């Protein structure tokens, strides 16, 4: 989808960022859940995808999400030392550092790609992280790089 058509389908300000959030089942998803049951307000721009562990995230998911039209991606897992599978998040940390740098290097705006640690008890933190992510994506506007264009059809 191009910037133009997006603007047309957007909200009052013309466009609202869309965020894909990959959350680990044991910590961050529970954190998001807690934010919900605690009635902590956070922006509704996020589509949550629950995964067993941040180590499960194939970094290509991030690229795919952006290519698929998401304006930003958040990956969140357990704090170091808290991984349900002991070290999944620590392997993941290396992978994410490299992917974030590579994407920035080839010119995908770094404002779109975020990683965070959120525990099951950190509902507030989850809302804060997400708010920050959305602000950051808002700064760079709708994603246009990596998006496939289609000609007009019947």
């Amino acid at each position, binding site marked *: 989808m191009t910037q133009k058509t997006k603007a047309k389908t957007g909200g009052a300000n013309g466009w609202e960022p869309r965020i894909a959030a990959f959350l680990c089942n044991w910590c961050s998803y529970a954190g998001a859940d807690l934010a919900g049951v605690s009635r902590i307000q956070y922006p509704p721009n996020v589509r949550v995808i629950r995964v067993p562990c941040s180590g499960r995230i194939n970094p*290509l998911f991030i*690229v795919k999400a952006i290519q698929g039209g998401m304006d930003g991606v958040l990956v969140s897992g357990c704090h170091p030392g808290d991984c349900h599978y002991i070290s999944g998040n620590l*392997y993941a940390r290396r992978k994410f550092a490299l992917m974030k740098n590579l994407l920035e290097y080839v010119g995908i705006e770094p404002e779109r790609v975020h990683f965070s640690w959120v525990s099951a008890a950190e509902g507030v933190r989850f809302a804060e992280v997400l708010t920050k992510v959305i602000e950051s994506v808002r700064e760079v506007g709708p994603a246009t790089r990596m998006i496939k264009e289609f000609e007009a059809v019947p």
Partner: protein
Amino acid sequence: MSELQGILRREVAKLLEEGTVDLFVGYVDADLPLKTSVRFLRSPEEAEALVWNASCTSNPAALLPPLFRRPEGLRGEWTPPRVGILAKGCVSRSVVGLINARQVPRDSLYILGIGCDGVIDRHRVMQRLGVAELAEASVEDGNVTVRATDGTAQTLELVEALYAGCRVCRHHAAVIADATIGGEPAPSDDETRYADVEAFSERSSEERWMAFMEEISRCVRCYACREACPNCYCNECFADETAPKWIGVTTDPADLAFFHIGRAYHQAGRCVDCGACVAACPQGIDLRLLNQKVNQDVAVLFGGEASVSLEEPEPLCQFAMEDDQGFMTEP
């Protein structure tokens, strides 16, 4: 060089003669300027064809994994072949990577290490000399000489003609070997290892995106880079998967970008900067610009270097509690 070539031929003939290996993979002359062919030898007589020179650009380690896969449909006993490989520094590292990844068995390999002074990058020769073709070219006395259609000749110092990775190579000699021939050229202390990456990084995000897309827009999706790379041994590449379908098969810019980000990323902690992908690309895409970024990050962030030892796990197969996490988003 020719003396070393003689030793190489004798050594390999002996290996085949004595049955130390069933097969030996090395380089033979190709009928084209500044090119060699990879050849698998079976008999001692064939060793006479082996060459060793600055045009030995391919990384024959890429051809090893299929040799150790049991032939499809075969029943009963099967013994993998014993394979000898001529290994300059980078090739030996690729072999280490393959052994570490359980793609080739150490026991079935005979690694004949050879000291390497670097190999020629044909595209670079063309660019540096401003010539459109390498119809006639040769290496003499430390110079690459290219003759044009009108008979005029141009020369370039061999060191200037080398693949960028060779000019900053730290592993001219094999990191593991069953035997070694040739000298051991000193490792480069060149600090410009990541110069291209740093120069590229200094440009704006927009400029980098444009430059990246411009560079890869030449891609024809032939996958020569992938197939020429010893690291790309996956049974099914993400680029070929249909469920999930990561990318289309077209040359749409979005497909090309995804492929090249994915390819470079999958080199993380594994690329040995051998230049095989760069030499293989029929379109002259500067794949090193991407590979080296990942290599630099692995070196800087994790202090690691891919495939230098059979004992040390590869950089992405380990972690440290204190790994950098400055990139993470804090509220």
